[in-house]
C-alpha cells in the first residue's frame, strides 16, 4: 500500500548511499521501538527504512585502553550484560536499563534513543555526563562529535542527509570517578521520564569533588548540561550546603513545559530532588573506586 521500501545494508557505505539517495524521508532503523510506533500512528511516513543492524560494528561493545566503544544499534540488554561497562559506568548502564520494559531492552539502542531526539530519553543525560562522543559517518566521511551536539530540539538532530551514527565512544573513568542516573516516573516501570538526572563526578583528596558534570533530561527541549550545578559540586564535599546549592542550580536550569506527563512546577521541584539524590549515589560510588 504505502510507498515504503525496506533495505538492510551489510556495509556502512551501502547504508550511507541508501540514506543519501532520493528526496523523500529516509529513516534509520535500529531497535525500532520508537520508529515502529511512529510508523503505525502515521506520525512518521518515510519512503525508505534502512535497517542498521546488519552493518558490522553496529551491534556490540568493545574495549580499548582508554574507552568503551558501543555500537549504535546495540540493544540495551546487551549493554546491561557487559560487566566491565556496568562496573565502569553504572549510571550509564542503569539509564539504558530504564528504557522501557525487558522486551524493549531486547531492541532499544543508544543510537535510537539519541536520534529519536526526545527530551526525555533516559540514556542521553548519562552518556553526555560521561563526556561520550559519537562517530558519525556520511557522504562526506567520518566525524567524531560530542553526544550533546547531536540533538538540537524535540525530534530534531544535527545529522545531515545521508549521515548515521556508527558508534559511541565512552572514555573510561579516572580513579575516583563515578556516575549515577535517576529518573522520576509515576509508576515503577514503563513510563517516559518526567525528569531525568545524570551526575558524573571525580573526587580528589578526602572526597572533595574535583570535576563534575550534571545533565538533566525532560526539563528542556534537549538534555541540558547544568554548568552551575557542576560548579556547585566542584571543590566541595557533598554536605547539606552543597546539596542545597546543587538543588537550586538544577531547578534554575530547568525550563520544562506542562504536558500530560508533568507540570512545570512539578518538574522543576523534582529536578532538584533527583540532582541531590543522584549526586549522593555518584559521590558514594566515586569514593569506593
Amino acid at each position, binding site marked *: *500500500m*504505502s*510507498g*515504503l*521500501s*525496506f533495505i*538492510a545494508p551489510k556495509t556502512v557505505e551501502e547504508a550511507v548511499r541508501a540514506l543519501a539517495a532520493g528526496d523523500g524521508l529516509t529513516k534509520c*532503523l535500529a*531497535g*525500532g*521501538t520508537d520508529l*515502529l*510506533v511512529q*510508523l*503505525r500512528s502515521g506520525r512518521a511516513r518515510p519512503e525508505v*527504512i534502512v*535497517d542498521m*543492524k546488519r552493518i558490522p560494528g553496529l551491534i556490540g561493545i568493545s574495549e580499548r585502553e582508554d574507552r568503551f566503544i558501543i555500537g549504535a544499534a546495540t*540493544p540495551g*540488554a546487551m549493554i546491561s550484560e557487559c560487566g566491565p561497562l556496568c562496573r565502569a559506568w553504572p549510571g550509564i548502564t542503569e539509564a539504558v536499563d530504564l528504557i*522501557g*520494559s*525487558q*522486551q*524493549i*531492552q*531486547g*531492541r532499544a539502542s543508544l543510537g535510537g534513543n539519541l536520534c529519536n531526539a526526545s527530551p526525555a530519553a533516559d540514556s542521553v543525560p548519562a552518556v553526555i555526563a560521561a563526556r561520550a562522543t559519537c562517530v558519525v559517518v556520511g557522504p562526506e566521511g567520518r566525524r567524531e562529535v560530542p553526544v550533546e551536539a547531536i540533538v538540537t530540539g524535540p525530534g530534531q538532530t544535527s545529522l545531515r542527509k545521508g549521515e548515521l551514527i556508527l558508534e559511541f565512544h565512552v572514555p573510561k573513568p579516572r580513579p575516583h570517578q563515578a556516575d549515577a542516573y535517576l529518573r522520576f516516573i509515576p509508576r*515503577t*516501570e*514503563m513510563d517516559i521520564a518526567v525528569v531525568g538526572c545524570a551526575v558524573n563526578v571525580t573526587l580528589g583528596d578526602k572526597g572533595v569533588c574535583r570535576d563534575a558534570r550534571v545533565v538533566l533530561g525532560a526539563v528542556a527541549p534537549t538534555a541540558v548540561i547544568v554548568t552551575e550545578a557542576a560548579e556547585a559540586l566542584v571543590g566541595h564535599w557533598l554536605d547539606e550546603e552543597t546539596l542545597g546549592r546543587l538543588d537550586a542550580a538544577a531547578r534554575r536550569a530547568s525550563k520544562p513545559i506542562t504536558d500530560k506527563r508533568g507540570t512545570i512546577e512539578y518538574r522543576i521541584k523534582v529536578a532538584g530532588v533527583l540532582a541531590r539524590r543522584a549526586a549522593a549515589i555518584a559521590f558514594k560510588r566515586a569514593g569506593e573506586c
Partner: protein
Amino acid sequence: MSKIHVSTVINDDPVEYLCEPQQSLLDVLRDELNLTGSKEGCGSGDCGACTVIVDGRIVCSCLMLGAEAEGRKITTVEGIATGDKLHPVQQKFLEHAALQCGFCTPGFIVAAKALLDENPNPSEEEARYWLAGNLCRCTGYDKIVRAVLDAAEVMRAEAAE
C-alpha cells in the same frame, strides 16, 4: 510495492514468507502464518501481549518489522511446550490460577520462560520488574508472580536431578 521475501526459523521450523515493508512481525505471525497465539493489545510495545523470543531475547513482535526476521531464530508461545508436555511455567500458570481472561497469558508465558532461562532463581522483586512490560488487567499479578517463582523452583529441582 513488491513484497519482501523472508527466510527465518520459527519454533524450530524453517519458515519462508512474503511480507509488506510496513508489516510488523506480529502482523506476519498472526495474519500470514496463522500463529495467533501472540496477541495485539496495544501495537506500541506497552502491553507485552505480543512477546516473542528473537535470538534469545524477548521483544515485542509489534515493534519489529516482519522484514527484520530474515535469518533470525524466533520462538512464539506456540513453541514453548515440548510436544504435549507443558513447560513448567505453563503448568504453574494453570495450577496457580494465574490467568483469568487469558489474553495476556501468552506474553507472560514467553517473558517468564525467558526470565527463568536467564535467572533460575529470581527474587519476587526481580520477577516483578522483569514482567513489568506485560500488562495484566485481571489478576493483580499476585498469582502470576507466584506461578513464575514456583516454576523456577520446579526447574531448579529438575536441573539438579
